[in-house]
């Protein structure tokens, strides 16, 4: 049995005093955040309401040592829906700040920099949604050189840094360039000549844009001629992936990201949308129809839209016929 009076009231005061933690006790546990949050799909135990409730009761060790406080990616999907207008990601940030002060470490993988090949161009610094990367003097081969450095406490492992890196020196374990390239690689299903009338379409979805189970199962068993590849964030998909997919025999690519303002990693979807536009312009220059590369938003409320979206793109590509690179 938990003895409530034995819990640490000083912890409550500490969170309240931390910037961002002011609204800890405003919460009345309605559960709107818990059922909005998508992290629970990958970790059913994740529940922001419970973290706030526990912190409000004074469960110091339970809260500070929990994995959950590190899992909130500050997408703020719950914030506009919260009837008490509690900025939950800020409360999480406050709790994390206390955890860091007390020596707790973020669990799981974060981005890794290869100091040897890093050219300190600063692209990753600018692209990181969490301001987790800085350029620092780092030890290398007995001397020191300027290189990117990842703050373990801030990194959310979205891989956006990897997608902008000019020298492929920053990687997130689990979704390296090689791995994604392999995933995107033309599968037998998509090889030319296997299915005459169906177009070969590659669909890239992010981890967070498909909400309804029916959409998820459609993505797992797409119709013939369509391949669906999952990436952590649409912003992870560098333009070169799209170009090489088209080169390797795909007739059309569709990248699906979260709805504007709903990105799980703050701005990955906006970044990707711009990239797809660049690829489209490139196709124009090459005399190839620009609609062979497409981008689409999918929001939390778009139940059942994903199959329709894919079918529409398949129809578009079918109308264009097989992709020919000409001379």
């Amino acid at each position, binding site marked *: 049995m938990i003895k409530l009076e034995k819990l640490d009231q000083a912890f409550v005061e500490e969170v309240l005093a931390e910037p961002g933690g002011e609204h800890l006790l405003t919460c009345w546990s309605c559960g709107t955040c818990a*059922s909005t949050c998508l992290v629970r799909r990958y970790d059913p135990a994740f529940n922001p309401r419970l973290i706030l409730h526990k912190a409000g009761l004074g469960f110091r060790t339970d809260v500070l040592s929990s994995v959950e406080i590190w899992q909130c990616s500050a997408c703020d999907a*719950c914030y506009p829906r919260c009837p008490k207008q509690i900025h939950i990601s800020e409360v999480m940030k406050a709790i994390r700040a206390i955890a860091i002060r007390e020596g707790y470490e973020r669990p799981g993988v974060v981005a890794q920099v290869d100091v040897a090949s890093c050219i300190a161009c600063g692209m990753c610094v600018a692209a990181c949604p969490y301001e987790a990367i800085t350029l620092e003097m780092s030890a290398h081969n007995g001397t020191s050189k300027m290189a990117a450095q990842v703050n373990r406490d801030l990194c959310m492992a979205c891989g956006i840094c990897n997608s902008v890196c000019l020298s492929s020196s920053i990687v997130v374990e689990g979704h390296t360039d090689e791995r994604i390239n392999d995933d995107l690689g033309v599968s037998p299903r998509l090889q030319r000549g296997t299915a005459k009338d169906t177009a070969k379409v590659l669909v890239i979805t992010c981890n967070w844009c498909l909400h309804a189970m029916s959409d998820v199962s459609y993505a797992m068993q797409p119709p013939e001629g369509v391949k669906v590849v999952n990436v952590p964030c649409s912003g992870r998909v560098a333009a070169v992936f799209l170009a090489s997919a088209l080169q390797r025999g795909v007739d059309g690519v569709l990248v699906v990201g979260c709805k504007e303002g709903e990105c799980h990693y703050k701005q990955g979807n906006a970044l990707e949308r711009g990239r797809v536009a660049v690829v489209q312009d490139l196709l124009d220059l090459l005399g190839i129809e620009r609609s062979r590369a497409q981008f689409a938003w999918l929001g939390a409320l*778009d139940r059942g839209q994903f199959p329709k979206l894919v079918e529409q793109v398949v129809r578009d590509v079918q109308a264009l016929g097989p992709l020919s690179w000409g001379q």
Partner: protein
Amino acid sequence: MVDAARHPKIEILAYSEVERVDGYIGNFRAQVTKKPRYVRADLCNGCGACAKVCPIELPNSFELGIAPRKAIDVPHGQAVPLIYAVDLDNCIYCYKCVTACGKLDAIDFSQESETVDLDVGSIIVATGFDSFDPTVIPEYGYGRYPNVITTLEMERLANSAGPTVGRLIRPSDGKMPKSVVLVNCVGSRDSRYNEYCSGFCCMYTIKNALFLKQSDHDMDISIFYMDIRTPAKGYEEFYNRAREAGIRFIHGRPSQITEDAETHNLFVEAEDQALGQVIELETEMVCLSTAAIPRADTEHVASTLTLSRSPGGFFMEYHPKLRPVDSPTDGVFLAGAAQGPKDIPACVAQGSAAASRAARVLSADTWEIEPIVAHVWPEQCLSFQGKKCGLCAQACPYSAITVVQGQAAQVAQAKCHGCGGCVAECPNDAITQANFTDAQVVAQLRELLRDRPEDKILAFMCHWCSYGGADNAGTSHFEYPPTSRGIRVMCSARMDQDFILEAFRRGAGMVLVSGCHPQDCHYITGQRVAAKRFDRMPRALERIGINPERFRVEWISAAEGEKYARVITEMDAKLTSFDKAQLRAENDKARPEIEKRLRRWKAIPQMAELLAEEKQEKQEVPA
């Protein structure tokens, strides 16, 4: 309503609007515009033959747009009085109604709007409420998904006199739903829209759930709630009945509702707190229990009748505990949901109370008022002297003062509540407030600052809030330094800036001005008058050489004893940090300038004597 219509002493002016109200308790004059119905009230028998032949169909607002109405119609079947009216904006002048009315000849297109003046003793405001429009909550999909409806729509769909003759159907396909989800607290208890609890939604949601269960025993009914609030007599038993009837109660607020585009079925997602897990429920229909909100024209009515509004926007009562049906304007009473969300029993109770309060006025020959009303000394009044002024009328929250240029300002004493805002605002000290005259306040001030004034904090407190706050600090035994000295006036609006200057002239160390928080002001806008005045004060003090840090303004409610103690503690700490010799030097330097400004006080009765006494004291001191 029918009883009221038949009563020989009740006249119902339906389809009319109150344009303006003058006068005061017992003697109001209301200007009412009767809109033209284009149907003669004395001839129409409500048969409805005209509506049957009218070719124009429009959305019926009583049926929330679910059913049509005609361009000649009554609002609804039970309307009192049952007189048809032509909607001229949509009439095509085919005159079929005139033919249908036949010999009765009640339709008269030559009618014009008519203005009547009514002399009344008291007024009851019972303007009701509006229902919150949930279209603004995107995650609930109202307006986007056909099968998400509001409670009022459900009421009409389930009503045997409604558009579907009592058959509850899904708007998407017209079929009876086999499952319904009811969602509580839509637009209420939500700081994005309305902070307050609408109060009666829990009960009507349970009522609807039971009603549905009775109409179809196999129907799957779920209620999503944050808290179920059934505090009144017999309500908890009703709630228990619903639980036992098999209605599913889920403790969790839905985060979103999505739709299957083919079946138009809905998916409600929420966290069931009892399970601690996120659940999804597929249902055929969702009904949102929307908040009760103030009517859109509340502000208009408030300005017509000089009423104030509570933070939620409803009309504010005179006192939340002791005078819950009185408005701030004497003789005007509040009843029903116009004063705040409430259910039918509470509305009936408040309506009865308002009626008896109103009758009290009607049966009295004389009316007692507080002995603190304002008086004008005519020859002092700038308007009487031919100048353009009227500051007193601007400051009056009750429109009790009329200023006509060339004549002295007139105070309607029955309307005056004695806040004293006019007295403080008058640039020529031509108004005084009984029992709170300038001389009386200054005499208090003199006594409080007689010894070692530079060690003291002079605190001006309003009767209703900050004085209560100081009292609360005392009764709660909150400790604060003994250096403060308080002067109570009725409202912060009474705190003349001359009093502040006089306090510094008498050598006060610090001065605190305190009153109600803006939304709590007992005199509607008194606090605002004061806030505006004291915004200018620090600069004025600086100009005469007084450190503005020695002056502070704080809004302290009667419950904030802790705040009062804290403010005084902070001020005391600051006062201790000042060099006393420098303080005295500052006061001495400012004294001649202040004396120059307060020279006009000599014209105020009793004040001259007070000033003379001071001179006498001074002469005595050297002796």
